């Protein structure tokens, strides 16, 4: 009875955190910065075409970048939040109230999911206004929706697991940011994946980021653009299979890992985090 009650409190918590984030100038600044970066990058190359086709560079790269930003936001966001809130006592506060951890993780899920909205909006709205032929066929929005949902399920557990495992928030850079950047470099976001060595292509295709980008391209681009992809196809079934596998593994693995992490939370750990942070500042 109190368990489902806690989920309801968690949803309220997530909504509140989202609202506070949207109102905060720090987060607004971050959204606008990424929006300017992405749209600016595409705008500078607005007249370029992809070699051998009549597709514009902007049209091909935008969906890939959206895929990247979703993966980035949903991995680094929860990883950083969790690492931070382990240190500052947020998690411990929830451990001290009945069913509080269930509420806390529900809140994280809601907040991190909602945080994608402003992120996507600041990029999509100016892009649709500035560039032609961004969405080849309106039915593509349906594909956008399921790719995002499946991509979220596939990548958010990774972020949570990184956040649970890192010893402190400064390590999120090494264990979260770095691998995500490397994957971004090899997942066919900025240039076709076929330009890379065969084994690098294999590595990239193990992880969800490549498939998120591919799924987004399949949603935005016309059918004939599939010729640019590996095997000349959107490989929709493979996309569902890979992202689905990550999602299932993540959903099975995350709860016990989070429970294990929460069990180790204590006041002394928070105190140690505080002392470490104070030294960091000095």
């Amino acid at each position, binding site marked *: 009875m109190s368990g489902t009650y806690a989920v309801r409190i968690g949803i*309220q918590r997530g909504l*509140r955190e989202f609202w506070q*984030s949207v109102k905060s100038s720090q987060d607004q600044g971050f959204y606008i910065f990424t929006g300017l970066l992405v749209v600016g990058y595409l705008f500078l190359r607005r007249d370029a075409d992809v070699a051998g086709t009549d597709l514009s560079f902007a049209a091909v790269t935008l969906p890939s970048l959206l895929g990247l930003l979703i993966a980035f936001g949903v991995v680094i966001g929860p990883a950083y939040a969790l690492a931070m809130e382990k240190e*500052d*006592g947020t998690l411990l506060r929830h451990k001290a109230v009945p069913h509080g951890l269930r509420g806390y993780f529900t809140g994280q899920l809601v907040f991190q999911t909602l945080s994608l909205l402003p992120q996507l909006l600041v990029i999509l709205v100016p892009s649709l206004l500035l560039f032609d032929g961004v969405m080849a066929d309106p039915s593509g929005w349906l594909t956008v929706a399921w790719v995002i949902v499946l991509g979220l399920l596939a990548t958010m557990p990774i972020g949570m697991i990184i956040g649970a495992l890192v010893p402190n928030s400064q390590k999120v850079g090494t264990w979260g940011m770095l691998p995500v950047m490397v994957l971004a470099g090899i997942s066919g976001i900025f240039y076709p994946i076929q330009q890379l060595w065969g084994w690098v292509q294999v590595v990239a295709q193990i992880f969800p980021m490549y498939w998120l980008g591919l799924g987004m391209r399949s949603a935005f681009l016309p059918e004939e653009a599939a010729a640019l992809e590996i095997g000349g196809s959107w490989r929709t079934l493979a996309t569902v299979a890979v992202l689905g596998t990550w999602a299932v593994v993540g959903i099975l693995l995350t709860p016990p890992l989070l429970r294990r992490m929460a069990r180790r939370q204590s006041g002394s750990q928070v105190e140690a985090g505080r002392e470490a942070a104070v030294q960091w500042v000095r």
Partner: protein
Amino acid sequence: MGDIATGPVVEVDDLRMRYGTKDVLTGVDFGIEAGEVVCLLGPNGAGKTTTIEILEGFRTRSAGTVRVLGEDPASASEDWRARVGVVLQSWRDHPRWTPRRLLGQLGAYYAPYATPDRPRPHDTGLLLETVGLSDQADLKINALSGGQRRRLDVAIGIVGRPELLFLDEPTAGFDPQARREFHDLIRRLSAAERTTILLTTHDLDEAERLATRVLVLAGGTIVADDTVDGLARRIAGETTVRWRVDGQAYSESVPDGTRFTRQLFSQYGDSVADLEIRRASLEDAYLSLVQQHEAGHGEAAARLFTEATS
């Protein structure tokens, strides 16, 4: 009193804790009855925080038996959590929340545990008023001063109307005014709600003001378990009397200050001047203990005080 436990609220039997090869607790025994305010004292590194974290269910003990409100905290249910309050020392969590929202949010978890004689949670507005945060209720938490933050910590600890409250060094970093207000709050909590309270502190004055009973943790065990008065009297054992007769200063340590002073007056009458009678304080008692402990005679101190108790 409805769902309020009668009899022992906390029972600790031969509690042991070992970190790696270092034994921090080597057999801690004590009990706390409903309604008591118990203060756990001890030098740095004696294991006060470890002990309280084990009782809170935040740390797994190495050995021994622990019962808190009838359950083992290491495997206690979420229902048990609803009856226990923990005052945490936070430092930067929830910076964008306001005290009112955070209290409302965390208090909501207790609503399913309300009973007719113990409505849960506390009303947010009243609670904020009680801890003196009404004026800051709608400010962002990162705008609060250190003392205000700690008062919010206390409010969060008691929002679920706990039957048992744990506080680990609650007034560290308080100014004297904030400390006084905090002591009033704890006394009210104990009197009005019959909340059983266990707190750790370095501040002996605080222990003297608040505690109905004091436990001293040293050398990995409880070396003293008594009321503040009883402890002070037994450890130092004596009262210091100072006086002057005809300009000559005298000082005497005696077991019974009252009787000694009466004799003094019957002997010297009006020529006794500058009389000062000072009972041994908790501080004297505590310092003599810590000195022995710090000098590496912890074991001896433990034996000494065990003998004094028996």
